[in-house]
């Protein structure tokens, strides 16, 4: 695999925290090049000039970390284009300054809590992705209350759910209960119907946002989008 391919593969692991989707799949990576002496240059683009600067910062910083960690890359430069806070974000990440220092006087803390809040949402949405096919296949909602991860047929959605749980420190092994709240506590039978409604809403929100962002990216940069409409 060429150095450039490895850099691109590293970018695949970077997610838009809000959309829970790789920035490569979202077509936020405008270009990625690596020179012979290992200098990587990545251009990122977003759907609008006013996309939330905190999420933008996370994506630029995560891209920097991911590409810098590729063996053979000696230096990484990540350039967010066409955003109202481009200079602040690009310079802040390049200086490894952290969010508070980059946005001096405008932020009280780093972005770890924000990131966690959206991993929790992704984890809830993931429960809908896993549970809905089970219900469609004829399982009763009441059966789902006792179900363990190991009882669920293997799928990419299940793998993804396990990943998000692990990122939150919530048990993700076969014995772990499938339906849990955002702290990892099992959902009882009584709360189950409402829980299923809530996790669906969370999923609809994330997926509708992703679709909307891709629509705007397409109008802004003329790139096609592959997601469900």
């Amino acid at each position, binding site marked *: 695999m060429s150095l450039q391919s490895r850099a691109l593969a590293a970018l695949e692991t970077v997610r838009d925290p809000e959309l829970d989707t790789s920035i490569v799949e979202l077509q936020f990576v405008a270009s990625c090049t690596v020179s012979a002496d290992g200098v990587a240059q990545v251009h990122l683009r977003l759907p609008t000039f*006013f996309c939330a600067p905190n999420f933008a910062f996370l994506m630029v910083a995560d891209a920097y970390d991911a590409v810098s960690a590729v063996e053979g890359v000696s230096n990484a430069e990540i350039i967010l284009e066409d955003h109202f806070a481009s200079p602040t974000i690009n310079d802040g990440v390049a200086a490894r300054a952290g969010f508070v220092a980059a946005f001096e006087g405008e932020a009280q803390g780093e972005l770890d809590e924000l990131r966690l809040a959206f991993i929790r949402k992704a984890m809830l949405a993931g429960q809908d992705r896993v549970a809905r096919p089970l219900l469609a296949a004829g399982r009763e909602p009441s059966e789902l209350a006792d179900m363990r991860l190991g009882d669920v047929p293997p799928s990419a959605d299940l793998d993804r759910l396990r990943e998000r749980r692990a990122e939150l420190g919530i048990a993700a092994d076969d014995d772990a209960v499938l339906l849990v709240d955002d702290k990892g506590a099992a959902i009882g039978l009584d709360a189950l119907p409402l829980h299923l409604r809530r996790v669906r809403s969370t999923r609809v929100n994330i997926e509708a946002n992703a679709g909307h962002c891709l629509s705007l990216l397409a109008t802004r940069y003329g790139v096609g989008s592959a997601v469900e409409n």
Partner: protein
Amino acid sequence: MYEKDGEKYFVVDTHLHFWDASKENWVPGAENYAKGWIDCFYGYHQLAPPETHWDWEHYLKVSEEDFVKDVFTDGYVDVAIFQSTYLTEWYKTGFNTAAQNDVLTKKYPDRLITNGRFDPRDGDAGLKQLEADAAEFNLKGVKLYTAEWNKGSRGWKLTDPEAYRFLERCQELGIKNIHVHKGPTIWPLDKDAFDASDVDAAATDHPDLNFIIEHAGIPRIDDFCYMAVQEPNVYAGCSVVIGALMHARPKFFNRVMGELLFWVGEDRMTFGSDYNIWTPKWQVEGIVDWEMPDDDAFSDYPRPTVATKKKILGLNAAKLYDIPVPAECQLPTDAGEDKQPAEQLVDDTAGAQA
């Protein structure tokens, strides 16, 4: 009025503008923001059916004749409500201030309503201005933009003590409709700018005010729904939900509207075209033609009926704003009444179908 298949739909467009984003109006030194803002809207504009697209120059500023034709003549709108957006940091005379909008309202007093604004960061001077505006524009509503920049500040919350002073004054002045837009740059930047929990507290503390959350909390529709289901005085303003999704992402339009119908209910949803982002015509026609798909993926969402569409398109808003509705268009709605939305959740039957 829109008429189809023998049904008459009284249309109240609760969210529209008459903006001036012309280059002459850009504040020197802030041109990139002024241009960035309107370009962002122009991106949204292109999510509409292609035959409705305008060129960029036209988009910057339309004439009064264009407005009347697009909204009243072609757009079926009976009564429209201007949501004033100031943005005076970027636009010299404002993007569309109450004063700008009210020029048209004075010419068409039976067809247009001017909503004002306040910014709690303006303090006592802002309160005085609100009182003056209430008298001048006969305000029944305000549009609050919690992410608006103001002298280096990137935003505020409805629960700020200063904001409560303004809400209480609104109540005294008879301004009972509080439209709230959550934006992307609220301070501090490390928190989620779209978080709607402040609306929750403010709505509980001001039961006599109606809180219409514009764009139904996009991009946090889930958080909005869980909040709104608990608050009888919280409404889903459907502008942008319709304009951005109905044509460009029809499956998500069905899902998002399905979520709103389930959690918030058809008596608490209002139509807004968000003109001049989009024209009302295709949106009104689309809502009336809209059906929830029959396949299993949508089976647990409520089905929109003719009554649902009549309420969303006009009857709910007419009740909130005391707009007279012709007898042949009327239907009862719970809008404006102190009744819990989505009562199916209270008796816990809703999730059983999930």
